């Protein structure tokens, strides 16, 4: 494939959904079937293009494979701000994932959203999202990345708030956008730091400059800690990922985002958009200093564990999946943080398939049951066999049951953690937490399966109406289940996606210096280390443990979940309330902020304006005595004058307006003062 062909295809992949969006937003209502075919055609064509690129990548199987295309966007001063596309192995894989999931979700939505009054609009937004996400994947510089980053947020806002006439989705959409904005500001600060230091946005140029050691100096934070610019930039950029990939402490929006239609949850809040943060960290990997990576690793670790525990008590099927997503994203981030570059991205890819499958499966359940509450389900495996089977497969993949795809990727992450822990002993807890997390994952996922598909129906009315979903829903499930099983086979991913070395970007002479400056190199937790074996065993053990516990509690009901909850009320309450994070934000940020604004507004009205008004009033007061002003000023002077100097005070007893004689007195007195003053001064 030639360079220009690859770029043309990439451009086509990118722009087709945009075209679909434009057509849909303006003409959707007039088109037959609400124009869903426009969007579907576009995304399928994009998928074809993506596959075309991926095939090329697969056939080459060279980590260094890639094409770049840049053009001048605009010029400020002498700076040419460039944007462009970058195609390499990671991009190729991501393109297929995004287009694949997106295409399936499109198909799924034709059934799921059937009959919705805003049906055409939904497809428009889906197209917009696909466009943004593809742009995010394809962009070759930070500024462009940021643009698509925000656009993705926008489409997410529209899609979460799709049923905006209900208050909850509208709230959730707003929350998602704002929480993301907070992270994005960090992201943007990171971009600013890099641009200020390097004067460029392009990945390649930035890496080259970093490799050449051009980022120097450090920033003093509040005069307490000195942090190297590069580390600071890394952490700031990571803030963006914290927002988008729902990492602690900005994860709060993702569970709420489940208010959106289920296909949206599958596409955006499981498979693609939330993975953007992980993708970004991977994309900018050479930038991150070891210090920054430690921050990343621990953020991921905390998120993984913490979201997993919340999922245990959740009863809403989609929320369980949402917390599971948060937790899995934590895994990916942690993987990247500990140096498992390949592992993190690998898990991203596999997770996309099985989590999309789970969400769509849950959507299928919701579609037929019109409820999201697991306590109202039960025994559905007979009514919805396809849904059950595909979800089971996906769950197993998620838990890391060999030889499904999740097994390989999760295992790789655990291995990376272990290896990193072995190299740096004080970071060994990362591995244990990760392993524990794996057990928790298995526990709550099987809890979901058991509660939903096994046992006796708990709500017979709903159960009776339940039915298997139509082909439009089932078909994507099957495809996704298939991919969940097989995506990890063959080791192709490890071969194609290898950790980029910063040194490779450096001019020869700088390479050594750069490496020296970069401190501890993170090892890549590969298959070939002994750590892998231990990690695999740990992982299998965790799966077994989790499954066992879940089986006992929710299938056999040998251990009563309620009893457990009663036994550990505090723990239960904290978990049930999601560690009170939302309440914490509300109390600490939202309420004070609102109060502050109120105060400011009053301040503006009362004080600033008040001062001005006061000045005005003072002027008016001055003008109120305007008639008298001559007299009161004159009055004082005249009295003083009359009493002490000219001894005419007895006559000038009072000043009244309109009395000509007093005018004269005033005039004379002042004249005398002038004469005296002047003769004294000069």
């Amino acid at each position, binding site marked *: 494939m030639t360079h220009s062909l690859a770029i043309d295809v990439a451009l086509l992949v990118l722009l087709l959904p945009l075209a679909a969006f434009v057509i849909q937003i303006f003409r959707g209502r007039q088109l037959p079937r609400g124009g869903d075919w426009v969007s579907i055609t576009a995304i399928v064509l994009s998928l074809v293009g993506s596959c075309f690129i991926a095939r090329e990548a697969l056939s080459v199987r060279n980590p260094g494979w890639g094409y770049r295309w840049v053009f001048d966007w605009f010029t400020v001063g002498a700076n040419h701000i460039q944007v462009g596309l970058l195609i390499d192995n990671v991009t190729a894989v991501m393109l297929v994932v995004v287009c694949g999931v997106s295409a399936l979700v499109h198909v799924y939505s034709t059934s799921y959203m059937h009959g919705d009054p805003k049906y055409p609009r939904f497809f428009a937004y889906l197209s917009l999202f696909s466009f943004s996400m593809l742009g995010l994947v394809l962009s070759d510089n930070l500024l462009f990345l940021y643009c698509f980053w925000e656009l993705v947020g926008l489409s997410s806002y529209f899609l979460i708030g799709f049923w905006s006439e209900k208050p909850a989705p509208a709230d959730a959409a707003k929350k998602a956008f704002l929480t993301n904005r907070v992270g994005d500001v960090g992201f943007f600060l990171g971009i600013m730091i890099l641009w200020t230091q390097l004067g460029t946005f392009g990945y390649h140029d930035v890496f080259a400059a970093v490799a050449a050691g051009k980022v120097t100096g450090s920033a003093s934070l509040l005069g307490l800690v000195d942090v190297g610019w590069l580390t600071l930039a890394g952490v700031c950029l990571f803030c963006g990922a914290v927002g988008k990939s729902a990492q602690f402490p900005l994860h709060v929006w993702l569970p709420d985002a489940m208010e959106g239609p289920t296909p949206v949850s599958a596409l955006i809040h499981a498979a693609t958009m939330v993975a953007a943060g992980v993708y970004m960290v991977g994309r900018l990997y050479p930038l991150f200093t070891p210090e920054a990576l430690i921050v990343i690793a621990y953020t991921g670790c905390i998120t993984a564990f913490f979201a997993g525990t919340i999922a245990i008590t959740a009863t809403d099927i989609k929320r369980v999946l949402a917390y599971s997503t948060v937790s899995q994203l934590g895994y990916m981030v942690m993987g990247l943080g500990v140096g498992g570059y390949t592992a993190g991205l690998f898990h991203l890819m596999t997770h996309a398939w099985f989590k999309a499958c789970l969400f769509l499966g849950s959507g299928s359940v919701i579609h037929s049951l019109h409820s999201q509450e697991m306590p109202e389900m039960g025994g559905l495996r007979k009514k919805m066999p396809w849904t059950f089977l595909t979800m089971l497969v996906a769950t197993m993949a998620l838990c890391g049951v060999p030889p499904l795809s999740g097994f390989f990727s999760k295992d790789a992450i655990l291995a990376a953690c272990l290896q990193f822990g072995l190299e740096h002993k004080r970071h060994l807890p990362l591995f244990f937490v990760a392993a524990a997390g794996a057990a928790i994952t298995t526990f709550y996922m099987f809890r979901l399966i058991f509660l939903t598909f096994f046992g006796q129906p708990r709500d017979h009315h709903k159960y009776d109406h339940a039915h298997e979903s139509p082909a439009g829903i089932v078909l994507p499930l099957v495809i996704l289940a298939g991919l969940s099983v097989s995506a990890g086979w063959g080791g192709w991913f490890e071969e194609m996606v290898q950790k980029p070395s910063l040194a490779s970007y450096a001019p020869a002479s700088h390479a050594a210096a750069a490496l020296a400056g970069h401190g501890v190199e993170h090892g890549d937790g590969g298959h070939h280390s002994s750590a892998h074996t231990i990690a695999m065993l740990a992982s299998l053990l965790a799966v077994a443990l989790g499954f066992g516990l879940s089986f006992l509690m929710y299938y056999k009901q040998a251990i009563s979940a309620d009893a457990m909850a009663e036994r550990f009320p505090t723990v239960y309450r904290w978990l049930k309330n999601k560690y009170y994070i939302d309440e914490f934000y509300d109390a600490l940020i939202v309420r004070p902020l609102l109060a502050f604004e109120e105060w400011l507004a009053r301040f503006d009205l009362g004080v600033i304006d008040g001062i001005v008004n006061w000045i005005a009033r003072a*002027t008016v007061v001055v003008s109120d005595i*305007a008639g008298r002003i001559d007299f009161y000023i004159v009055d004082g002077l005249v009295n003083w004058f009359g009493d002490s100097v000219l001894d005419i005070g007895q006559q000038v007893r009072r000043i009244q307006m309109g009395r*000509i004689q007093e005018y*004269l007195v005033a*005039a004379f007195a002042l004249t005398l003062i002038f*004469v005296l003053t002047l003769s004294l001064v*000069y």
Partner: protein
Amino acid sequence: MRASLLNLDYLLPEWIVCGTILVLILSYLLGTTDRRRLADLSVLGLVTALFFSVVTFFEPAVVGRVSIGNGLLQVDPFSQLFKILFLVSTLAAVLYSAGSVEIHGKRWMEFNCFLLGVTSGMMFLASSMNLMMVYLSFEMMSLSSYVLAGYTRGDPRSTEAGYKYVLFGAVSSGVMLFGLSLMYGLLGTLDMGLMAQRTALAQFPDLHLLLLPLTLVFVGLGYKIAFFPFHYWAPDVYEGSPTPVTAFFSVGTKAAGLALLLRLLLGTLSLDQTQAIPWAGDLLAFLAAMTMTVGNLAALNQANIKRMLAYSAIAHAGYMLMGVAVLNVAGAEAVLFYLFAYMFTNLGAFTVVVALFNLYQSEQVDELTGMGKLFPLASVCMAICLFSLTGLPPTAGFIGKFYVFAAVIQKGYFVLALVGAINTAISLFYYMRIMKAFYFREPKAEMLAAGPMPCGYNVLIASLTVPVLIFGICWSRLYEYCSTSISSLIAH
């Protein structure tokens, strides 16, 4: 310089004005009591006088200054320019009064004669080159104006105005006369030309001695120009006098006082060239600042348009005094220009007040609402005049302010400039109060009943407002004339 007793032809404008008085009296005696007819006559006289003033202004001999009556009078561009100013304002006053309900028809002839008497006094004052002549013409102007102020017989307020005016005026002119007498003693001559020669040669023992006489003279001038602290009479008198008279006072007599002040300070004592009296500038600057501040602050809360414009006139005296205070050519030119701008503007504004008073017998701002709707032309002209009074471009008032501020800043009186600027902002408030009533409020029901504005007033208003705009855009010619005048004043 043509120095001769026989240059009386250069006083043609004065003769014509005096002649008009005689003609008016005669024709009245011969039975012409019709106001319209008499007005035609006096307008004819004034226009002719105006014509000859303009002609003499350009006369080469006049540019070289013509001395008349053995140095008693001098006709030069400075005096002629002022005469033009006086004549225009008198013309306006005559036209106002011709249609005014305040001046009764039968007594209109007398009124007009006094008006022309004031004018001739002012014209002689502008030409005076001798302290004796100064006093004579000053009194000629004053005495007639006292009568004018108290003209409306039926209204006690008018009587009171006249009474206050004469009282304050008599005292002030007495003080001024005492000052003049001292000046005479100190400088050893009554002839201002001679004085100028002596001051230029610094032949005085000690100019510091002039402190007292000059201050005493300022009292008289201060009362005429109405600057602080000799302005107290002004609001009362302006309010009580018939409106045409008020308009005339606020422009004509003020200008006359300024003419004398400029001639005295620059033409006679040559303060622009000698630093002999260092306090004069500072004193004037202080007075200027006080005058406009007091005037503007007092105007802020006035509900009576006439009284508001009276205070506004005081404030404007302050601005003009700013130009005098710098005591140089630039300042004097600025004052002259400002005077012209102010004349058109203030007369224009007063025309509207007079016209509305004729229709509604009201001077209260709050009663004259919605005029913008009822009388679009007059209201637009009023708006332009008020903007010009505030000093906003593109009006003549702005250019006047520009010249004054330029002179002040050039001289380095920054504080004065700042005070002036702040005052400009303050003044906006009360001028806009009128605009608010005219435009932002609906007309009152009883106002709708009044008939249309007489065509003559519309023409008068428009013809006074058009120059305000024209001199706001193409003013360079007028400025040249002011320059010529001032250079004739100070060249020795």
